[in-house]
């Protein structure tokens, strides 16, 4: 958290209403998101209890395991879930575009991708565990399950893992997304409560939000009081209807909140980088679909050493790129870097568009721009700069002091003897320059999987699930 966000939280607390910390939306919002609110049985790792889900806010589907300790009912629930989620996911595979690649074969990318929205980070964790508990099952053998169950398991594993990828919108956790756009007047810990966070954003803090009788928890854990006083007796009564109706009361309020939150986010205009990140999501989704179509085995229980290191490196790069993109897309995010001196903004007070350096053939055009700023600039002469106002342009800091910064433009001003029209800002224009750049950093030199050093476990064996995996108890 930055000081800027801390200040917003203080302001929120003082004014009794959340404060914006973004001026644009930084996540993709699907035209037809699948809202998924799962509940699990307390005390169990991944025993599903119920889920409310669907793409139509007026017609949620409610799936319930009326006796969560009954294995057959549990797999029947998983099959039912697959019956809703798989058609939704696979529905995006029909329309594709061909993407040309440098040094690689062209591939087919889905023109749109599924988006499964869960209430919170714990919901993502539960999706991952559900995926883990289903993907090694088999349709044949001693404990047969419907064929759709292991397939759903692989997809849920994929979505759960992709959710950890910075900037991905395939499986957003609602409280996280809201928290990226608004600062409440409570702690981050309390922000994990969807009802409480939404109250801060819309009407102001409310103690009702923490009362499980008014706003049941958004899952996957249920309220212990509800378990003791309502759910346990309902289960003991042996009436599936009673259990179903009890769980409906716990899910319906969250269902409404989820759509309210989607509307709130939809009210913000999408940032410029959202589309390109969604394009990456579409590519990743298509890659997973191709993987499954080719008959590859389910994701292993654990990544091998090289795969894990490569994943970590990919995630770090994605995080860096995501941070930079958000700053370029959103002045309020850029302001964090202005506060620390890594960026500055102000008015152009002087220019020399025709300035050149060098003589003869090596003479180069280097337009000069002088900016007046109130920001505390902490950049050394020679620092290379980028600017959100002219994305393709590169500049270099010449000098800074007394509220005046001189920069020279080094690239992206056209190839002519004079700068292309519009390439050099006019006097009076407001501009921002920063040392943050979204330059592609090559992937670190990691060995291929086959060449994993013995110190890291040697080459991984391709994971082939065995009978034991398929029969693993799920009790």
């Amino acid at each position, binding site marked *: *958290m*930055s*000081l*800027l966000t*801390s*200040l*917003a*939280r*203080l*302001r929120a*607390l*003082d004014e009794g209403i959340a404060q*914006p910390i973004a*001026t644009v939306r930084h996540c993709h919002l699907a035209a037809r998101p699948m809202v998924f609110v799962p509940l699990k*049985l*307390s*005390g*169990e*790792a*991944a*025993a599903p209890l119920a889920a409310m889900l669907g793409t139509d806010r007026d017609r949620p589907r409610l799936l319930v395991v009326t006796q969560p300790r009954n294995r057959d009912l549990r797999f029947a629930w998983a099959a039912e879930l697959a019956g809703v989620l798989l058609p939704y996911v696979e529905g995006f595979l029909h329309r594709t575009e061909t993407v040309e690649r440098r040094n690689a074969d062209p591939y087919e990318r889905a023109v749109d991708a599924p988006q499964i929205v869960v209430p919170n980070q714990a919901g993502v964790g539960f999706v991952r*565990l559900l995926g*883990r*508990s289903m993907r090694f099952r088999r349709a044949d053998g001693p404990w047969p399950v419907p064929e759709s169950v292991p397939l759903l398991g692989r997809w849920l594993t994929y979505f759960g893992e992709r959710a950890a990828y910075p900037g991905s919108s395939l499986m957003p956790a609602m409280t996280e997304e809201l928290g990226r756009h608004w600062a409440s*007047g*409570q*702690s*981050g*810990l*309390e922000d994990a409560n969807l009802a409480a966070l939404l109250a801060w954003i819309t009407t102001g803090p409310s103690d009702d939000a*923490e009362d499980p009788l008014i706003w049941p928890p958004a899952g996957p854990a*249920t*309220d*212990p*009081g509800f*378990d*003791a006083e309502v*759910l*346990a007796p309902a289960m003991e009564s042996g009436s599936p209807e009673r259990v179903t109706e009890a769980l409906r009361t716990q899910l319906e309020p969250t269902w409404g909140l989820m759509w309210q939150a989607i509307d709130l986010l939809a009210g913000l205009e999408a940032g410029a980088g959202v589309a390109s990140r969604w394009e990456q999501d579409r590519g990743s989704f298509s890659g997973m679909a191709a993987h499954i179509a080719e008959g590859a085995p389910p994701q292993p*229980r*654990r990544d091998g050493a090289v795969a894990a290191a490569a994943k970590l490196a990919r995630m770090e790069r994605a995080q860096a790129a995501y941070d930079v993109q958000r700053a370029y897309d959103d*002045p*309020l995010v850029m*302001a964090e870097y*202005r*506060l620390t001196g890594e960026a500055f903004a102000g008015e152009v007070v002087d220019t020399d568009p025709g300035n050149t350096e060098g003589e003869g053939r090596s003479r180069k055009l280097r337009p000069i721009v002088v900016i007046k700023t*109130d*920001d*505390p600039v902490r950049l050394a002469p020679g620092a290379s700069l980028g600017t959100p106002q002219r994305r393709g342009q590169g500049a270099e800091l010449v000098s800074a002091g007394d509220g005046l910064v001189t920069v020279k433009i080094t690239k992206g001003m056209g190839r002519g003897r004079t700068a292309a029209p519009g390439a050099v800002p006019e006097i009076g224009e407001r501009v921002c320059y920063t040392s943050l750049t979204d330059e592609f950093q090559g992937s670190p030199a990691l060995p291929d999987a086959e060449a994993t050093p013995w110190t890291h476990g040697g080459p991984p064996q391709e994971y082939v699930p065995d009978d034991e995996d398929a029969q*693993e*108890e*799920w*009790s």
Partner: protein
Amino acid sequence: MSGLKREGDHAHRLEALRGTTPQQPHDARAIAALAANPGCARRALMDGAGVDKDAAARHLGFPAPFGQSPFAITRGNVFEALVKADGCAELLRMLRELLGLTVAEVAYHDVENVGAHLRHAHTRTLIDRAARDGHDAGTLYDHPLLSLEIAGHTAYLEPDVVAFQLGGRFHIVEIKSFAVIDGQADPSAVAAAARQAAVYVLALRTLLEELGHDPLKVSHDVVLVCPENFANRPVASLVDVRRQLAVLRRQLTRMTSLDRLLEELPEDLTFDLRPDEDGRPTRPVAELGDALRRTTARYAPDCLSTCDMCFFCRDEARQEGASDLLGRQVRDELGGVASVTEALGLADGTRDPAEGQEEIARLLRNAERLRGECLA
């Protein structure tokens, strides 16, 4: 004031703080939680006096948001029963693998057989004999009853835990029902289990020391037994609790030196709930609230998962407009500016920075200017 008098005073004052409310026994979970917010005087005093914080919070109209689902309790009991079935047969199988146990024969003592009132004495005798003999046979002690001195009171620890002796070394075994899936478990659950196990390690070490044995005969590696993956099959792993032990020791030392905190309190201060015959508190709520507010709390959002008093203290922090409400990160970022109004005053320039606040004031003013500019 003489040292002697002070010591008598000390116990006396703690008794007075609790008043007629029955003493709340400390279990391992409660003792482990003591280390969660070591800087809080309110908590130290309430725990030191053995006040039932849950009952106090309830009476004040701020019941704690904690509760355990009957499903979770059942699951925990079933799992523990499974691990301990047939004289801990399953547990032995795992310990053989984990600790490279070669002995085929392992003795099993169920301390509970002797009846509750004798359990502690019996545990002492058994452990004493084991430590003295020091022969290489493995022995399991089921249902031992340990004790630990907490601020002048003896807390009895009744673990679902087994102390296991092998080659003269004892291991604490802790049975938990959260799952280990593909070698990974919920880190916060593991951390809580480690804190609890550290309490048992400390209690057992204290016991050995009292009996004149080397306390380090108790290993700082505890055996954590959890269900593996999605089944009920248990799996054991070793967890090093040295860090938790250090924190716990520090906190217990603090608790035994409550003198300073007590001295600052008015003579007649009490947290007495004045329970009636049925145990219902009759103390006027406002009076109890005032008494508690005489002690200094140190609220942090973490309290919401560790302390029964959390909603009361959060409410107090709200009334005071304390920046603590927003979490440690914000607090650290503000560099010690404790009140919301003060921080906002520095930000919008209506308040002049006190000495030492110049830097944070400059940052806040800049942040305020930037937010204003971007949101205009």
